[in-house]
C-alpha cells in the first residue's frame, strides 16, 4: 500500500514537472518579451521572467488552464513594479546607455534613442497598473482574447481600455518632455 502511494506520488511529481517544462518552453520567450517591453533591457527582462516562473511553479499547477494568462499578467506587473523602483531605473539607464553605445554608430542617434526610451519608460511607470498592463501586453503581441484573459476583463473592454491607455501614455510622455 505504502509503495503504491509512493509510486503514485512520484508519477504526479514527474507529470507536474513535464507539464511545467512544456509550459516553460511554450511561454518563456513571450514572458521575457513582455518584461522586455516594459524594461527595455533583455537581461533584466530574463531575470523578471525567471522569477515569475519560479513563483508560478511554487504556487500553481502547470496544468491549470489559467497558467499562460497568469504568467502574462505576472510578467507585466512584476516588470512594471521594477520600473517604478527609482534606484533600479537609474542603474538601468546607465547600463542601457552603455549598451546602446556598443550597438549604435551615430552618437547623436544613440542619445536620441536612449532619451526617447527613458521618457517612455518614465511615462509608463506613472500610469495606473491596469492601463500600463494593457499597453504592454498588447504591444507584446498578445491577442485581444489573451489580454482579456490575463487581466480578467471582457474581450469587449480591451479596445476601450487600450484606447484610454494610449491617450494616457501620450499625455504622460508629453508631460515628461515639457518638464
Amino acid at each position: 500500500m505504502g509503495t503504491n502511494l509512493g509510486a503514485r506520488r512520484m508519477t504526479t511529481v514527474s507529470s507536474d514537472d513535464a507539464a511545467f517544462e512544456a509550459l516553460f518552453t511554450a511561454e518563456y520567450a513571450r514572458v521575457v518579451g513582455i518584461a522586455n517591453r516594459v524594461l527595455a533591457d533583455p537581461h533584466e527582462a530574463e531575470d523578471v521572467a525567471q522569477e515569475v516562473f519560479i513563483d508560478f511553479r511554487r504556487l500553481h499547477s502547470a496544468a491549470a488552464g489559467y497558467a499562460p494568462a497568469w504568467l502574462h499578467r505576472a510578467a507585466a506587473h512584476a516588470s512594471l513594479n521594477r520600473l517604478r523602483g527609482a534606484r533600479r531605473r537609474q542603474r538601468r539607464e546607465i547600463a542601457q546607455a552603455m549598451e546602446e553605445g556598443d550597438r549604435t554608430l551615430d552618437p547623436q542617434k544613440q542619445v536620441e534613442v536612449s532619451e526617447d526610451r527613458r521618457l517612455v519608460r518614465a511615462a509608463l511607470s506613472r500610469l495606473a497598473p491596469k492601463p500600463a498592463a494593457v499597453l504592454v501586453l498588447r504591444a507584446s503581441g498578445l491577442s485581444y482574447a489573451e489580454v482579456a484573459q490575463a487581466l480578467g476583463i471582457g474581450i469587449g473592454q480591451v479596445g476601450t481600455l487600450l484606447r484610454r491607455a494610449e491617450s494616457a501614455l501620450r499625455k504622460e510622455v508629453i508631460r515628461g518632455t515639457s518638464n
Partner: protein
Amino acid sequence: MAHLTEGTLRRMVDDPDVRIGMDKTHLEDCPECKARFQVVSDDAGSIATLLAVPEARVDVSSAFKRVMTAPAAQPRFGFRLPIARPGSRPMLLAFAAVLAAVALLVGVIARDLSLNYTPNTVTPVPVTVADMQALSQLADYGTLTWTKQPALQIVTSAADAAAVAGGLQPPVVSNLPKGVSTNITYAAMPQAQAVFTFSADKASAAAIQHGKSLPKLPAGMDGAKLTVTVGPAIGEIFGNLQKPTGSDASQLNLPQLIVGSSSAPSAISTQVTVKQMENYLLAMPGISAELKAAIKAIGDPSTTLPIPIPVQYATSTTVTIQGVKGVALGDNTGVGSAVIWEKKGVVYVVAGSIKQSDAINIANNLK
C-alpha cells in the same frame, strides 16, 4: 445609428476582421467616425513606435535549468504553509499575507515599542518574497514563545464558532453573489499570544551563519520582549470543503468565499527606542526600496495596521468600506480578490474566487 465608440474604432485598427456589418457601413459612410478612426489609428501607430524595443534573444533550455535549480523559498518562522499545492491561489494569497503579517508585526509594529500598538486603520504595503525572507530572518535574532498557542477549530454552527472565539459573532453576508455555495463551514480561533525575546547572542550567531552580512543587534535590544496578541478570530467558509481523495492535496476543493473578522492585533514591548528599531529593520539586507518607502510613509505606526500586499501576485487599491479606509486586493486574472478593513477595533476580511466588485459589495453590506 450612433457613432462608433472609441473602443470599437481601436479594435478596428488592430483587426480588420471586426470591420463587419453595420459598424463597417457606418465607418464608410460617417465622415466624423472616419476622421476619429484616423486619429485613433495614428495614435496607435505612434504608441507602438514609442514602445518598440530590440527583441530579447533567449536561450530557453539554459533558462529552464536555472529556474529548476532555484532554491525554494522556505518560511523560517517555525511554521510551514499548510497544503501549499497548486491551484489554490486565493488561499495561498491569504497564507502569504498571514506569513508576511507575522514578519511585519515583528518588524513594523516595533517601530515604536514604547507605545501600546492598537491599530485603528489599515494601509497597504508592498511586499516581495525577498522582503518576507529578509524579515523572517529576524526570527533567528531571538526566541519566539507562544504563551497562548493559536488553535484554529473548524465547526459546523455559528453558535459553536462564537463559543470558540470568545463570543465574537460571525459576520452576516446579506447578498451572496450568484454561483457561490450557501454551504457554510465555520472556523474560529481563541485569542493567541506570542512573546518574542531578542537576544544579542542569537543575533551574532545568526549573523555568522548568514555570512556576517546581517546588521548587528543594537545593544539595547538584548533581552527586549515584544508581546503580540492576535484574535480571537472567526470566519465563514462558503463552498464545499471536501477532504482530498487520495494523496494529492491539489484535489482539495477550495472555498469560493471566506468572510472573517478578528480583534485587531496588538503589540507591546520594552527597552528599545523607535529609531534603533527602524534603522535596524531598514538595514536588513534584501528589503526592497518599495517596502522601505511604504514603512516610512506610515504616519502613525501605533495606529496603522500594515496589510502586506504580495506585489508579484496582486495589486492593491484603497477603498472606502462602510465609511472607513480599506484595502482591496485586485486579482486581475479574475481568479480571486480580497478586501480588508478595520472598524471599531475589529479587522474584517472578505476574500475568495470572486470578482473584486463582488467582494467590495459583500464588504459594504456585511453586518
